[in-house]
């Protein structure tokens, strides 16, 4: 086993286990921490694929910012001790199992028929992504930026309305 494979297995198991924990844990606070670890493991997978830039952006945005935003939301609104107990109706269980099974089948089929490019030049460095984003797609980036700004202003307006 190469070190890459060992690290891949550790990270992959961690990502899947944490994703399952997000659903199965009882307390919302524990779920958020499991989610942060899941994001972290995925960032590690990006690092293994030599896409360091994406990996680090994943850590900054998801682990560093989004998880903390979630925790703040949980602390500020009175959800600290809320627990979720899933209802155990049989029909519900069977239906969700079928749905998830179909999704898994479709995804496996899609992945197995995919044609992955092998040994292509690596394009994950910060410089190349920068040239693409701010050179070829600059208008799209600006558009997304304005959209996000509008969403931010909208959220502030909505929150203020509720406070009044």
């Amino acid at each position, binding site marked *: 086993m190469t*070190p890459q494979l060992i690290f891949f297995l550790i990270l992959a198991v961690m990502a899947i286990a944490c994703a399952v924990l997000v659903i199965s844990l009882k307390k919302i606070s524990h779920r958020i921490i499991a989610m942060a670890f899941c994001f972290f493991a995925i960032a590690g997978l990006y690092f293994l694929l030599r896409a*360091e*830039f994406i990996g680090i*952006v994943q850590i900054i945005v998801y682990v*560093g910012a989004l998880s903390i935003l979630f925790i*703040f939301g949980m602390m500020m609104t009175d959800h600290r001790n809320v627990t979720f107990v899933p209802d155990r109706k049989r029909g519900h269980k069977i239906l969700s199992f079928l749905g998830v099974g179909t999704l898994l089948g479709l995804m496996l089929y899609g992945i197995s028929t995919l044609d992955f490019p092998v040994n292509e030049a690596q394009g994950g460095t910060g410089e190349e992504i920068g040239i693409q984003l701010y050179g070829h797609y600059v208008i799209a980036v600006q558009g997304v930026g304005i959209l996000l700004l509008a969403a931010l202003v909208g959220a502030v307006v909505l929150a203020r309305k509720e406070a009044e």
Partner: protein
Amino acid sequence: MELVYIILYAVITLAVLLGAVTYAILFERKVIGYMQLRPGPNRHGPWGMLQTVADVMKLLMKEDIIPKNADKKVFILAPIIAFVPSFAIFASISWSDNIYGADLNIGLLYFIGISSITTLGVLMGGWSSNNKYSLLGAIRGVAQVISYEIPLVLSVLGVVILVGSLNFRDIVYYQESIGMWLIIPQFLAFVVYMISAIAELNRSPFDLPEAESELVSGYHTEYSGFRFAFFMLAEYVYAYAIAALATTLFLGGWLGPAFLPGIVWFFLKMSVIVFFWFWLRATLPRARVDNLMRFGWKVLIPLALLNIVITSIIKVWMG
């Protein structure tokens, strides 16, 4: 074989860091002592050399207490999450021309990204203790760290624009090629960086999250013994990491006259910055929380943005 070297490098770095932190604490107490005209710790060993060692022994041998109403799993996990990223940062730092860990081409981003995880540990610790003071301290701490991370990153961007690379080694080689340290062309950025670094590290005069007189020392009130030691360790390791970053970016890294090896120059410059922080702690009173926030958002961020604009204009104008 490569894996063995990686592990060896990590172990050596950890050992050196632990020793360095032990003596940083001693020097902090000594420096503050001399500035307040008292001798500081001087009972254990010559010149008080074993004072921190004794303190650490005491911490390690203490009973491990977890509050009854605390969220146990999170409580145990929090110090580890706070400490691990502070150590992981050191993988990217390049100590001298040929002593370095990972030569990442996004070294600077790695540094900033990994260090943002510690906030999660602080928040988890403060919140799982189930204690009002801890929660207040954690919220204050996170609000402060998030607001001061923006000027910190923005001030560093000026250097990145000038050099055109995020790699620490490239940044130092650039300073070698232009023949001066980047503190001269980027003085404004350096000032903004130093101020926001102090706030990032929760050091005096911006040590609001652990203000012992009002919050009973903030997010780690409920922690004792080994876990408390982890939080303290993370704090001091961060102080070294931020000093190392300042050395690399603004003070020319390992560059210096040739009669001393590069790594010694690096450590000397780092020590000067760390001493500067001790000096501030001994002389300045604590800032108020609203002043702190106002200063961050209304003074530091505009200054950092101004620095970016000026730097870009100069860069384009110079070609």
